[in-house]
């Protein structure tokens, strides 16, 4: 009995923290219809600024909180001014990608400044527990509750009684009408980003104190939790976000009580998927609304793809094919093998995100499914590696499509959230399903690549194998794009309402796109498993999903040749310039930001 009270209190406290993140997300979504994927990074910044204040500056608690809030707000203002405001008249996909890029840049900056190792963030409150009913409660719990409630009250007063708050509410109800009435949308955005960032930063500080530990992985978790809470409460709905957060906190806390700690996140993401499927507008939204008629082709940047003559492609393919015969180092071959593997993933993602417009942020999950399938088949059932890899591709195609199918009725940013969550669910299932996946230990001793009984161990043979597989997948995809399916996919991307009115079933064609794309990704994952010989639940992570997305944007959405060029560029250039590994993600983030801002159609253009 008493422990239930403890779990309830814990759920509400954690929910309170989520609320600080979710309310910011809701404010931003309300005003600019944007899901700010950088919110978790601000939370991370808040935690580390708090660490600096507490451990190095020895500030008293009230000052620590104010300090964190102010610095975080400044970061928010900078993001708004330099990251998002220039994209105001840009295509719908642009701000979404920009916040993803910003989040990577911020996380990496924090990691480079403070090192990725976890560190302690001591609470500045006395460590006592009071007996309440059957449970206990500490001063930090009370502080978190107090900050949560007072923030809510302050926000309410601001929105209700100040002129700027009125402008924020007007803009979130009807942006165009608000602008016509003379509301300065830039100022509204500034206010909203500043407030959201301050709340997010303080939330990071409090969580760090609560667990007495901070590390750079907090960022993605916070974004995910905040987004879950916000979507559960109804995107853009500020009170809804608070209720959604408390609900999420309770669901997690009870879930942990019943099933154990490693299931915490699983419950969060399952809650998200259930809400997205059953009530995509949130628990509290009412009307089923027909979307307004858009201007055409605003989701992706319209462009004319660069035409590359066939002979040039043949020459390039020939050069790469004979490369191992030339005096090149193993290091070059190794780098290019990585590029071909990433190229396969990028082919998959450029079809899904580019051709049919489902910007997936969980694409690495498809790698993982293919890798585990192929590894386990060859290890436990002694299936020949070649067949096991194909089976991995098919499993990824089938399972990936089934898992992603709940998101088929969603659009735009929601698809990205859902795929992100589904990707996390896959990695959590891998972690927890020990009888099959061997859980956190991972799978070791995976047999090397082999074909018709011959082991492919030398870099040269691995190079040829992966290059050949990638070229075949690329040719198949090019053929797909030139068929009626290519135009059907692109029609759905450009305008799904008009596409439906002409008989295109969204479920059918999104499934086909994911089946085809899932196969390529699964094959890539399968090959990787046999190359690495060891995989675990973290081998294929969100960073790879984002890297693949950067490749796809760099090459041009939907562009087959672009995906390969992008993969070679993003894998190869850091090697050429000998950029240290820890700076690479930072550079990928910056590349993504620059592309979105200056060349949204990528190098070779959207198809």
């Amino acid at each position, binding site marked *: 009995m008493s422990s239930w009270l403890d779990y309830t209190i814990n759920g509400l406290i954690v929910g309170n923290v989520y609320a600080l993140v979710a309310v910011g997300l809701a404010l931003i979504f309300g005003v600019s219809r944007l899901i700010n994927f950088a919110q978790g990074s601000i939370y991370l910044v808040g935690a580390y600024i708090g660490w600096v204040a507490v451990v190095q500056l020895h500030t008293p608690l009230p000052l620590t909180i104010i300090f964190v809030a102010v610095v975080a707000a400044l970061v928010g203002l900078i993001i708004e001014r330099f990251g998002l405001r220039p994209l105001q008249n840009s295509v719908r996909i642009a701000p979404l990608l920009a916040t993803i890029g910003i989040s990577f840049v911020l996380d990496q900056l924090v990691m480079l400044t403070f090192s990725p190792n976890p560190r302690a963030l001591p609470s500045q409150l006395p460590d006592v527990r009071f007996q309440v009913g059957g449970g206990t409660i500490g001063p930090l719990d009370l502080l978190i509750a107090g900050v949560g409630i007072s923030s809510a009250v302050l926000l309410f007063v601001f929105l209700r009684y100040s002129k700027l708050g009125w402008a924020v509410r007007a803009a979130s109800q009807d942006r165009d009408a608000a602008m016509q009435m003379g509301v300065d949308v830039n100022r509204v955005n500034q206010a909203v980003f500043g407030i959201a960032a301050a709340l997010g930063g303080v939330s990071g500080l409090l969580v760090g104190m609560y667990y007495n530990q901070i590390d750079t992985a907090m960022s993605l978790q916070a974004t995910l939790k905040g987004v879950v809470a916000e979507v559960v409460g109804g995107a853009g709905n500020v009170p809804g976000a608070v209720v959604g957060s408390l609900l999420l906190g309770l669901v997690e806390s009870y879930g942990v009580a019943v099933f154990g700690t490693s299931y915490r996140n699983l419950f969060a993401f399952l809650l998200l998927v259930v809400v997205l499927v059953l009530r995509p507008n949130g628990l509290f939204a009412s*009307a*089923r*609304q*027909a979307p307004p*008629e*858009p*201007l*055409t*082709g*605003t989701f*992706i940047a*319209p462009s*004319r793809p660069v035409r590359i003559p066939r002979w040039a492609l043949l020459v390039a393919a020939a050069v790469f094919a004979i490369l191992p015969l030339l005096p090149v180092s193993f290091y070059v071959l190794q780098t290019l093998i990585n590029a071909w593997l990433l190229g396969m993933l990028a082919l998959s993602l450029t079809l899904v995100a580019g051709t049919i417009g489902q910007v997936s942020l969980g694409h690495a999950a498809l790698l993982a499914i293919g890798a585990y399938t192929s590894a386990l088949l060859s290890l436990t059932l002694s299936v020949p590696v070649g067949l096991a890899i194909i089976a991995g591709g098919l499993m990824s195609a089938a399972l990936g499509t089934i898992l992603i199918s709940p998101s088929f009725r969603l659009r735009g940013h929601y698809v990205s959230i859902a795929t992100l969550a589904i990707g996390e669910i896959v990695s959590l299932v891998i972690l927890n399903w020990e009888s099959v996946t061997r859980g956190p230990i991972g799978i070791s001793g995976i047999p090397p690549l082999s074909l018709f009984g011959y082991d492919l161990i030398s870099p040269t043979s691995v190079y040829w194998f992966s290059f050949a597989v990638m070229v075949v997948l690329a040719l*198949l995809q090019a*053929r*797909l794009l030139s*068929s*009626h*399916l290519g*135009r*059907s996919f*692109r*029609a759905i*991307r*450009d*305008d799904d*309402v*008009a*596409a*439906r*009115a*002409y*008989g*295109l*079933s969204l479920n*059918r064609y999104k*499934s*086909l796109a994911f*089946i*085809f794309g899932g196969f390529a990704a699964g094959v890539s994952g399968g090959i990787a498993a046999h190359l690495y010989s060891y995989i675990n639940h973290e081998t294929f992570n969100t960073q790879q999903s984002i890297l693949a997305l950067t490749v796809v944007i760099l090459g041009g959405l939907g562009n087959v040749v672009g995906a390969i060029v992008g993969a070679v560029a993003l894998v190869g250039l850091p090697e050429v310039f000998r950029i240290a590994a820890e700076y690479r993600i930072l550079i990928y983030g910056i590349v993504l930001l620059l592309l979105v801002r200056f060349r949204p159609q990528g190098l070779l253009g*959207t*198809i």
Partner: protein
Amino acid sequence: MAEAHAPLLSLRGLTRRFGGLTAVDGIDLDLAKGGLVSIIGPNGAGKTTLFNLVTGLDRPDAGEVRFEGQDITGLSPERLAGRGIARTFQLGRVFGNLSVMDNVLIGAHTRLRAVKPAVPVIGPLLELGLALLRPSSVKAEEERLREEVKAILARFGERLLPRIDQPAYSLSYANRRRVEIARALALKPRLLLLDEPTAGMNPSETAEMQALVAELKAEGLTILLIEHKLEMVMRLSDRVIVMDEGQKIAEGPGEEVRNDPKVIEAYLGHGLSGTAEQESAA
């Protein structure tokens, strides 16, 4: 008489509410095969919402839609397209990054047979396989449809044919509207719904469009038309329905409706009928 020929399309008590607003309020309508009925009314009268209800993009809160004698209320837009209902959109919804050719080919999507075998469960996988393998039957079908698209585009004279490979986003506004109509025609519709096909067009372009619609009607196509330009409505329509605030306030032959005091009041009362008045004065 009316009993003998069941109308192609008939609406009974069709109603759609948005919160407190009843956008479409108990509309009855009958459209005979080969007929052309126009729906007019001031801005916000509920005309487009009515189209959405008929084409499945929105579901009615009450009432019934019957097409060729069957109840089709609340069917999905995909199914309705399969039954031969095609529409254009008021604000234009071409596929911006698709070429004119591909845009119109999408219109013919419901008519694909060779590449889309009607097999349950594995049908989609067969479709994927056929799209990649492309046996001669699939190639022939695609070729036939491409020829057909060219024939449809030829109806617009030299407006679209020379731009057949250009992406739709690069076209002029009027040309995008034409692409939409071409796309609708490629479906070989049994019922065509046109939502303000001449919006934003100049007088000569409007006259061209009017001639095209008249031609389609002469060919026996059944058409439901929303149009603000009354001159065109008067020329083309067998019957005119006037909507205001969701309700049908008048119905009958064009001339009769035009002089109906309720109609004049609806237009004047809202003060939004600039075009309508100019046209009727002309």
